C-alpha cells in the first residue's frame, strides 16, 4: 500500500511540475502583464509607435442577478434586451470607432451577483480592476444602482442604468457626472400624469396602499403631493410588508373608504394578490392602479379578461411610433406574452442605443469623451435612439423623450392612456366590472 501510495504521489508531483512547466512555456510568448507594472497606459508612445492603436473588440462587463430573489426581475427586464441588442449590433460588425478606424464587436463578461448588493459591488470592482473592461453596464435594481454608481464614478466609468430609478437619485446625480438614468419613475413623470388624467375624468378621492420599502414609500409620498395638486384627496394610506400573504384586510379597508381610485404601489408578489383579492371580494373601484407588475404581459396571461381597465406604469404600446412598433416586433413577435414589458424595455434599449451613438460620435472608447457627448446632448443636438431624438436632463432621460407614462389594459392590450398627447387609446373611466364566473 505504502509503495503504491508513494508512487501515486510521485506521479502527481511529476505531473504538477510538468503542468507548471507547460503553463509557463505557454505563457512565455504572450505579452507578460508583469512586464509593465507601472500606471502607464498600454499604448505608451514609444519612438516607433505612431501607428493606430490595436484593438479588436469592446469588452463590456456586467454584474447581474442570474440567481437569487432578484433574478426574476433581472432576467425579465434588461437581460432580454442586451441578449437581443448585442447580437444585432455584432451581426453588423459591431460599433464603428474612429480611433481604431474600424468596427469593433462587443464582448460581454457577465458575473452572477446572486442578488446581493455586497457581491455586486465586489464584482463591479473586479470587472474594473482585474478584467479591465472597456465599459460597465448596469446592475439590476434601484438599491443596486445606488451602490454601483459611486464605484463607477470613482474609476471614471460611464454608467447608463437599466432597472431602477428613484427621486432620491436625483439629488445624487450632480455628484455622479458619468451616471445616466434611463427608466422613468414616480415624479419623473408618472404620478403627475396619473393625477392629471384621473382628475380630468372626475376622480375625487384615492386610497393608497404601498410596499414598505424605498419604492413604495417614494410612490406613496409623491402621490400624496401630486393627487392633492389635482384636487384628489388621499382618504386612506396603508403600508404592505414585502411578505404579505393575505390582502383582504387592506382591500376591505379600501372598499370601506369608498375612494374613486385604488393604488397598489408594490411588486407583483403584492399587487397580484391585491388584484385577485379585489376580484374575489367584488371590490371594483373606478380606477385600479398597480405597479410595477400590471405593465407586464404576464399580468394579462395570469388574469385573462379580468385585467380590463387595470392601470399601471408604461412607456409605449403598438402605435406609439414606427420605431417602437419595430422594437415590439423584434422583442415579442412569436414569443409568449409573459415576456412583454411595456414600461422598461424601450428605455433599456434606448440606453444601449445612447451608448452606441455616443461612442460613434466621440470616435473613441475614452470614458470622459463619451460622457461629454451624452451629457451635452440636447433637443437641438440629440442622440438618435429607438425613442427618436434622445437627450438627458441633469442625468435623467428627458421626459420629452418618454413615449408614455400611464397605461391601461383595454381590449387585451396595454395601451398608453397618459399623457393624453401621447396616448394610443382613451382612458376608460370608470373601469369595467370584473368578469363574472
Amino acid at each position, binding site marked *: 500500500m505504502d509503495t503504491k501510495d508513494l508512487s501515486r504521489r510521485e506521479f502527481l508531483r511529476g505531473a504538477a511540475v510538468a503542468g507548471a512547466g507547460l503553463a509557463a512555456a505557454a505563457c512565455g510568448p504572450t505579452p507578460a502583464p508583469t512586464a509593465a507594472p507601472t500606471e502607464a497606459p498600454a499604448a505608451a508612445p514609444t519612438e516607433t509607435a505612431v501607428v493606430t492603436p490595436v484593438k479588436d473588440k469592446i469588452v463590456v462587463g456586467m454584474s447581474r442577478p442570474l*440567481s*437569487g*430573489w432578484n*433574478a*426574476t*426581475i*433581472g*432576467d*425579465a427586464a434588461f437581460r432580454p434586451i442586451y441578449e437581443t441588442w448585442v447580437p444585432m449590433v455584432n451581426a453588423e460588425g459591431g460599433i464603428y470607432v474612429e480611433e481604431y478606424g474600424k468596427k469593433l464587436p462587443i464582448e460581454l463578461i457577465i458575473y452572477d451577483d446572486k442578488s446581493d448588493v455586497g457581491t455586486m459591488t465586489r464584482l463591479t470592482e473586479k470587472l474594473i480592476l482585474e478584467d479591465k473592461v472597456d465599459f460597465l453596464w448596469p446592475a439590476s435594481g434601484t438599491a443596486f444602482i445606488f451602490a454601483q454608481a459611486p464605484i463607477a464614478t470613482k474609476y471614471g466609468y460611464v454608467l447608463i442604468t437599466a432597472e431602477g430609478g428613484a427621486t432620491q437619485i436625483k439629488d445624487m446625480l450632480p455628484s455622479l457626472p458619468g451616471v445616466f438614468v434611463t427608466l422613468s419613475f414616480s415624479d419623473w413623470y408618472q404620478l403627475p400624469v396619473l393625477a392629471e388624467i384621473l382628475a380630468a375624468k372626475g376622480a375625487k378621492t384615492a386610497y393608497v396602499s404601498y410596499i*414598505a420599502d424605498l419604492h413604495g414609500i417614494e410612490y406613496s409620498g409623491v402621490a400624496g403631493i401630486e393627487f392633492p395638486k389635482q384636487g384628489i384627496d388621499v382618504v386612506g394610506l*396603508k*403600508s*404592505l*410588508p414585502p*411578505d*404579505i*400573504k*393575505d390582502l*383582504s*384586510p*387592506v382591500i*376591505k379597508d379600501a372598499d370601506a373608504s369608498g375612494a374613486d381610485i385604488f393604488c397598489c404601489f408594490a411588486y*407583483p*408578489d403584492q399587487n*397580484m*394578490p391585491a388584484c*385577485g*383579492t379585489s*376580484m*374575489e*371580494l*367584488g371590490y371594483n373601484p373606478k380606477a385600479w392602479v398597480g405597479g410595477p*407588475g400590471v405593465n*407586464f404581459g*404576464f399580468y394579462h*396571461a*395570469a*388574469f*385573462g379578461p*379580468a385585467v380590463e381597465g387595470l392601470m399601471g406604469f408604461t412607456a409605449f404600446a403598438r402605435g406609439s411610433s414606427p420605431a417602437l412598433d419595430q422594437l415590439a416586433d423584434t422583442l415579442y413577435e412569436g414569443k409568449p406574452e*409573459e*415576456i412583454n414589458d411595456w414600461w422598461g424595455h424601450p428605455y433599456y434599449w434606448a440606453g444601449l442605443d445612447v451608448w452606441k451613438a455616443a461612442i460613434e460620435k466621440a470616435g473613441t472608447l475614452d470614458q470622459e469623451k463619451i460622457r461629454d457627448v451624452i451629457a451635452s446632448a440636447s433637443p437641438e443636438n440629440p442622440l438618435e435612439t429607438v425613442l427618436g431624438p434622445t437627450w438627458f436632463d441633469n442625468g435623467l432621460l428627458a421626459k420629452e423623450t418618454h413615449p408614455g407614462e400611464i397605461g391601461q389594459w383595454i381590449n387585451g392590450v396595454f395601451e398608453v392612456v397618459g399623457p393624453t398627447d401621447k396616448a394610443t387609446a382613451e382612458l376608460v373611466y370608470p373601469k369595467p366590472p370584473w368578469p*363574472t*364566473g
Partner: protein
Amino acid sequence: MLTFLNIAIAGLLLGGLYALIAMGLSLQYGVARVLNISHGEFIMLGALTTYTLYSVAGINPLLSLAIAGPAAFALGYIIHRTLFKRIAASSESPAIFESNSMLAAFGLLFIIQNLALIVWGPETRGYSYLAFPVNVGGALFGANRLVTLGFSVLIGLAFYLFLARTRMGKAIRAAAQDPETAGLMGVNINWVLALCFGFGAAMAAMAGALISMCYPVHGVMGIEYAVIAIIVVVLGGLGSIPGSFIGGFVLGLVGSIVAYFEPGLTLAAYYGIFILLLLAKPTGLMGK
C-alpha cells in the same frame, strides 16, 4: 363581530397553508433530522407544476394535488436514499449529520431553483381559479381561499390519522423519538427516514399547488415559505407533527390580527412570538 369574524377567518385561511408547509418540514427536520432549507423549492415545484398543468392542459388545480404530491414524494424519497443517506453514513455524529445535511440542502436549493428558472423562466405567473366571493356570516372571502383551507385541513388530518393509527405511522413516531432504539427494535430506519423526507416533500408540493390557486408563483418564491415553515416547526415543537399543525394556525391568526392594525408589522410579530416562545418554553408548544 363582523371585524372579529373577518380577522379570525383570514387567520385560519393563512394558518391552513402554514400548517401544511410546516408539517412537511417537521417530518424532514423533526424526524429525518435534515434542516431542509430547500423545503420551499418543493413548494415552488408544486406551484409551478400546478400552474403549468392548469394553463397548458386545463387540468383542475385540485386534481393536480394528486399529481404533484406523489411526484414530489418520489423525488424526496430518491433524494434521501441517495444524498442524505450517504451523508448520514459518512457523518460521525448526529450533530455533524445535521450541519452537513443542511449544507447539502442549501446546494439542493440552488440546484432546484436554477433548474426551475431554466424550465419556467423568470416571469411571475398566476391564474384565476374560483375567484368569486363567498359570504361567511357577513364576512366576504374568496372561494379559492376557502377551498385551500378545506384541503389543508383535510390533508393535515389525513396525515395525522396515518401517523396515529397505522403501523407505518408508529414506525415514524418511533424514529422521531429515538432513531437508534427504533432501529434496534426492528424498524428499517433508513427506509422510514426516506419515507419521512418523501412525505415532507409531498406536503410541500401539495401546499404549493394550493398556494398557486391564490397567489402569484415564480422560480424564487420558495425561500420565504421555507422561513415561515422553520418558525412554525420550532413554535410547534421539534418533531411534533400536531404541534406544527397547530403552530401554523397560531401563526396565521397572529399574522391576521396584527395585519388588521398594521400590515407592515406582521413579520415582526412572527419573530416576536418566536422569541417569546423560545424564552418561555424553548421546546415549543407541543415539544417534550
